[in-house]
């Protein structure tokens, strides 16, 4: 998933477009949505939750 795809996917989940360094938990990324993201990205829920920004997530999936 590209950064742009990630941004638009997360934006769809939250109903608003986050910036790269916005805290996604603050923007309404609850545990349930986070699980969906983890599933979709094949990433670990806890890893995503530890650093909940688009930038960090991009780095995570690029590995």
């Amino acid at each position, binding site marked *: 998933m590209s950064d742009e795809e990630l941004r638009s996917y997360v934006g769809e989940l939250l109903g608003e477009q986050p910036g790269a360094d916005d805290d996604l938990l603050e923007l*309404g990324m*609850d*545990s349930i*949505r*986070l699980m*969906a993201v983890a599933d979709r990205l*094949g990433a*670990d829920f*806890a890893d995503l939750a530890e650093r909940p920004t688009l930038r960090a997530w991009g780095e995570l999936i690029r590995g």
Partner: protein
Amino acid sequence: MAEPLTAAQLGIWTGQALSPGSPVYNAGEYVDIRGALDERRFEAALREVIGAAPALHAVFSDAGQVVRETDGWPLHRLSASSVEEAEAWMREDLRVCADLAAGPLFAQALIRIDEDRHLWYQRIHHIAADGYAFSLLARRVAEAYSGRPGSFGSYAAVLEEAARYEGGDGTRARDRAYWVGRCAGMPAPPLLAPAAPVSGEVHRRTAKLPDRVPPEVAVAATAAYLHARTGAAEVVLGLPVMNRLGSASLKVPCMAMNIVPLRVPVSPSDTLSSLAGHVAAEIRHGRPHHRYRYEWLRRDLGLVGGDRRLFGPVVNVLPFGYDLRFGEARGTVHNVSAGPVEDLSIAVSDRGGPCADFDANAAAYSRDELDAHADGWLSLLQELTADPDQPLSRVWKPLTGGVVLDGGPLSVPAVPVAHLIAAQAAAGPHAVAVEQEGRRLTYRELLTSARAFADRVAGASLVAIMLPRGFDAVTAIVGTVLAGAAYLPLDPAWPRARVDGILAAARPDVLVTAGGVERRPGAPRDPGLAYVMYTSGSTGRPKGVAVGQEALAHFVAGATGVYGLRADDRVLQFAPLHFDASVEEIFLTLCAGATLVLRTDEMLQSVGRLLQACADLGVTVLDLPTAFWHEVVYALSTGTAALPPRVRTVIIGGEAALPERVARWHAAVRGSARLLNTYGPTEATVVATVAELVPGDPDVPIGRPLPGVRAAVVDGELVLMGGGLARGYLDAPFGSHAGEPAYRTGDRVRVRADGALLHLGRIDDEFKISGHRVDPAEVESALLLHPGVREAAVVGQVLDSGTRRLVAHVVPTGEEPSGLREHLAGLLPAAVIPSAYVFTATLPRTTSGKIDRSALKATAVETASRGDDGLVGVVLRVWEEVLGATGITPADDFFQLGGQSLQTIQVVNRLAAELGRDVPATLLFRHPTAAALAAALPPGARATAEAPSHVADAVLPPDVLPRAVPATRPPTYLLTGATGFVGAHLLSELLTSTDARIACPVRAADEPAALQRLADALAAQGLPELPRGRVLPIPADLTKAELTGDYQAVYHNAAVVSVTRPYSSMRAANVTATLDLLRLGAPFHYISTLAVAAPGPSVPEEYVPPHPGLRDGYTQSKWASEELVRQAGERGLHTAVYRLGRVAGADGHVNPGDLFWRIVRAGVLAGARPDLDLAEPWTPVDYAARAVVTLSHAGATGVHNLAPLPPVHLAEALEWVADDGYDLPVVPLDAWVRRLRNGDAESAATAAFFDLATGPPPPMGHVHAGRSAGIPCPPIDRGTMRRYLAHCRATGLLPAKGTPC
């Protein structure tokens, strides 16, 4: 080293301890693994992961938890031929109860279905794992199996984090404030089934969902479903939260989840989108506070114990659709048991497709009910998601066809009453059927004369009976029913016009009067009716309700069992025969073979007379109109009457019972008789629902449907169905509901959590007064017949006193017409004649041109306030209250003002209470004007009441008057209770800051002994020594001696303080003494307590009327004294009241008798402090003394709340004690109390106090204390506590720190 349990664990540990051996806290899941699986490799991976999860290896005791290795736990390896067989094995395993003290907390199994399919099953006790923990474990096992790296977070860090939070790092208080605020004014959560205890058995239904459902949508749909089923305007759902984000538990398999309440207001105009939006915002708003345990919140809100609920159904949206890969094999997760289910849980998850698990507590729901709800929920969800912007009202109409409440089948067949009465006569011919004034009619005699009557009316279909209550009337009624005809009761006292109107409309074939039986040309009608009763309808004209024989039989079959009526019962026949309550009395009694005792008019002389007559007659069942019962309760609670000893059941109905009266009833009767609150319109045959009213219920429910009756709530309105329904009106059938005959009651109701119905009021304008259903239109039509009336609008009003009255707003054609009352009296029954008339030029109208009735209702028609102008004034005030009328003059005739039997009783009852003497009703009949009645009232002392009541005692006798006390220099003050904790400070303060001489009554043999007691009291608190000559000891007991003398001021501080003693035992010391001291006629300063305040958001600085919060004898006695002081103030005496909170010691001193210090002492000895989450105002004693003396010298009058400091949180105060060096771990209150019972006598006494307490006192509202604002008060803080404790050690109240106990 044992670690404390986290609050989440503690909740489960406590729950398990309360139901030992119960497997209800087991959670179970399996992973369905498809593909080749290396079983050895799997076991190795599993053992590695389980070994790395410390929470699974903890063992628990009341000392805490210890993590140790679980040695040699087995991995069950078995084969099953199918998934179903494997699931059966799992369900069996889930019945095993883990031993929390010894472990293991879990079980593991690998079940082989075939070589390409394995089920990996885990059972873990909820104390060790929540749903998220399961997912962490599964994921880690899959990783380990596949050789991928991974690890868990630190369990120790989780415990530390919890300890920090629970230790009060500030966040907890903030979270508490959030939730308490969010739950302010929260209704009892609506449920789909009566609340039941959590059982070990859960019904589960699983269904596939067409699409994924976001959490807020699942919650919104559930809220809409509850609304549709219960009609509730607000639902409260439970939302499980994982509590992992931003927490040390993020990667730790353990128990961390919580459940938070989610309030969702729902209205018919809402849409799925609007609800989901609200829910999403609410969830987001609450998220920062999710850690606050729901167990704590329940306690904060007083929702602990019984069937009280914080939330209704739980909606859990599980995201665990994780894709597990074990090498090449893939796993999907299936939940088998999610742990305990309090009510209903809907879990939405994804297992190879979206699905929902509906789990229901089997004690509350049958499997069929669960299936019906699951289907209903699914279809509602589908309809709502099809168009998320359509209003709910469009979708749910078909859904509300579901019956909310069903009285169940009849337990005995519905047999026609004629057969039952004949059978009773055959079985017991000599038993007494009817009795009046010593005359008796046996069943055989009744049947014989009734059959003779039946012959006389043979062939008739409707028989009008206009006879007074008596043997003839009962015989005619039974005879009519035996003849297969219906009876139509008419009141001989009705105006001729009304009787003629009804006869013309109903067209009976026969009219029976005292003059004989008269045949008339009747109308043809349906066969098989039992009776026709007229009620006021909505069209302005009375309506005849036609009740079939089958409905009557149905009612008798259903009610006899519920009321528990027996052949040896003696039932009072109280109701007028044209009220359908008489049907209940007559037919239930005669069909049961019991005795019907007809009342006489003489019995209505007074409540006391009626109850005495019932006692003499051995009545066992009393069936009373609620309005009359209110008077009975009043008399019982003031001790002017007593419940007849043989009465075992009291049935009330006809209007809403006042909660205050219900509480008084319970207090007065103490369980000696059952109280049944019945509800039912005439259209549903007397009674449709019944509730047994029990102490402690804050509501007054109308209960559940009788057997055979079903009830639906449609848009908040109660709709009745079933075999008890009347046939219809004589001229019109009822409507139908969901395809069956149904009666829309017009009553607004709500279904409470336990399934009981609560009556909320009328939907239309209909108004009930004295049990009569009043239709304003009927009264208005009658008013308009008067030539002087151009327009009229009649509205019902409920005055603050609870009096219900009708007010006529009249636009006259010219001059204000006179004689409206007389005009109406010729047309209408007395009860529906308005008691107040307002003349106006125009009536207010709404924009659509209709009369604006709500504006009229709001129009204040003041009852003239009257000063105390003697007995006539008292009489007039009572009349105005009872009649709801204005401007009554001493010459007005009570009966011409609309007074009837009930109002007569109300008047004599209230006058008796006000005057403290018996007032017979005959007096009012003989002297119907206020002037004449006042003159005729018997002089005399207060009647000796058998049970003294604080309300009855709170009437100031006329001899208490202000007196001109001669001034002396220096002045002499009287101070009572000077040897007490507060009194000593008051004495010291008066000595220091005034030059007065202080007279102190002290219980002692002589003056030197009295003086010595005073000196000792001051010394004990470190106060300065008594100066010579200024203190005048009076050896006297206030409860025995009446003091006399001239004092320039009285400081009345003496009181017996006890929370356990009844009012009667404290009355002499705390109330009579106040009265005696008031008789001194001197300026009066009364030391009172904030405990007299009524529960509510604030405690104002003013006197309070009596309220149900005055629960114990002490507060009742203090309230009664305040009330006496208030009345003395009204008479011109200079009076002031000073209310204190919990009296704290002056700096460095404590009151060892105070409850707080008893708790501290018992706690230190027991090595634990109780978890007491209670905040209360504390008043330091030196401040109190200073404030009283300062304010009294400044000429204070009225009430002063002396609460200068913020409320003290007991938990915090106890924490200060612990911080001072006592090892006092917090334990739950009940556990703490248990420990105390094994302590010394003092500790056991403290334990007994908690055992006796009916629960924590309601939190006290914000205390207004503006009048003492200027008087400085040092804070009570950690430092104060340290000095208090040092004092305790110095005086031996507490052992030295670290001393083993």
